[in-house]
């Protein structure tokens, strides 16, 4: 019982000290997390609704939070409706930029309602030193992979510029030659030459 209390206190502690921002009811707010593969991402959130009577924000347990996570290939890997407060987790299977989008499911609230969302996103576990070192190592490998991809894209851009220039010069020369040949035939047909 005591340990369960500790769990609840710990997760509340994490969220109430987190960053918060405001969104309109139907607005989507997206965050980008660039992570290596096989990394677990944990997001803690809490939603509060603006109460015009007190001009503050209060908890409304019946608000739902829709969380949608897309992987670097724009494929949806998590799309779930959560409670007004809680946590969501996902593990990346491909390295790259994952998009985490949040929006509320409420359409029954009065128009123009403002929501306050407390959010904290942690990529990779931060609990013990060994896990942190492991995470750093993973990040370094991912960095090496990204630099290689970057170099490949650079080379392909350079190649593309070279080939397009050569191609365009060829097209220029060919159209010039075609023009001269066509007009010569035209003038000869018209008996002007």
């Amino acid at each position, binding site marked *: 019982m005591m*340990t*369960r209390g*500790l*769990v609840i*206190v*710990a*997760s509340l*502690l*994490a969220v*109430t*000290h*987190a*960053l*918060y*921002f*405001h969104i309109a009811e139907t607005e989507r707010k*997206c*965050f*980008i*997390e*660039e992570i290596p593969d096989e990394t677990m991402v944990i997001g*803690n959130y809490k939603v509060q609704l603006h109460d015009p009577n007190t001009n503050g924000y209060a908890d409304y347990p019946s608000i739902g939070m829709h969380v949608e996570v897309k992987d670097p290939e724009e494929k949806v890997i998590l799309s779930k409706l959560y409670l007004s407060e809680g946590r969501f987790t996902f593990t990346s299977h491909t390295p790259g930029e994952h998009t985490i989008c949040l929006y509320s499911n409420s359409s029954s609230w009065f128009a123009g309602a403002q929501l306050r969302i407390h959010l*904290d*996103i*942690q990529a990779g576990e*931060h*609990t*013990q*030193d060994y896990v*942190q*070192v492991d*995470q*750093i190592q993973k*990040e*370094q490998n991912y*960095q090496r992979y*990204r*630099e290689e991809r*970057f170099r490949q*894209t*650079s080379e*392909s*851009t350079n190649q*593309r*510029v070279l080939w*397009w220039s050569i*191609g*365009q010069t060829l*097209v*220029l020369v060919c*159209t*010039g030659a*075609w*023009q001269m040949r*066509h*007009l010569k035939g*035209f*003038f000869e047909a*018209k008996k*002007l030459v």
Partner: protein
Amino acid sequence: MRFISVLLLTLGIAFAGEYDFTIEVPAGKFQCYFQTVDNTKYKTLEIDYQVVDGGDLNINFMLMLGANVLAQEAMKTDGSHKVELKESGDYQVCFDNSFSYQTRKVVFFEMFLFDEKGQLDELDIARLGAQPDGGFVKKMEELGISIESFHASAQRIKNELNKVEYHQSLMRAHEARDRAIMGANLDRVTLWSIIHTVVLIGVALIQVWMIRSLFESNSKMGKMLRN
């Protein structure tokens, strides 16, 4: 269950010092992010931001507490601000992209909260150690290691690892920005090459057609060119 509770408790403590997010600010929009800060626990706030993608890679930045503006920058690509926390409250970090009509900006920002010792998070080894086995401290003393020096070493290691992570996120943001610039360059090169080729061929055809009509007696274009 006990292990999970200890894990989550340290998770709660580890969350307290550092936040980083990569956000998208649409064209013409003004976005703010708030952080509740307790002045008794934290003494310094540091905020670093960098524009990773979008147009000229610049954005307006503001750090405010209530109505006071603590820091402000206009049209910068990156910035770093460290402020003394004189009072508790909700500090807000705002990114203003209203000067741009078409391009959305992707901004990476990190917020650090330092206590009076200048450290990010306090690693409470004694509490961790005391949980599973009460004789932990006694065993360590038998080995000739005092709990204070162990604590100091662990704290130093944690600080260095935090520094490594900080540099890694900075490098990651730089790389993302460079990759975005290069992607935009590649798209631009491809687009303009195609346009140039199409214009080239089009102009060649128009030239031939106009010269032909110059010599055709019954064409409108020929009559127009001859006069």
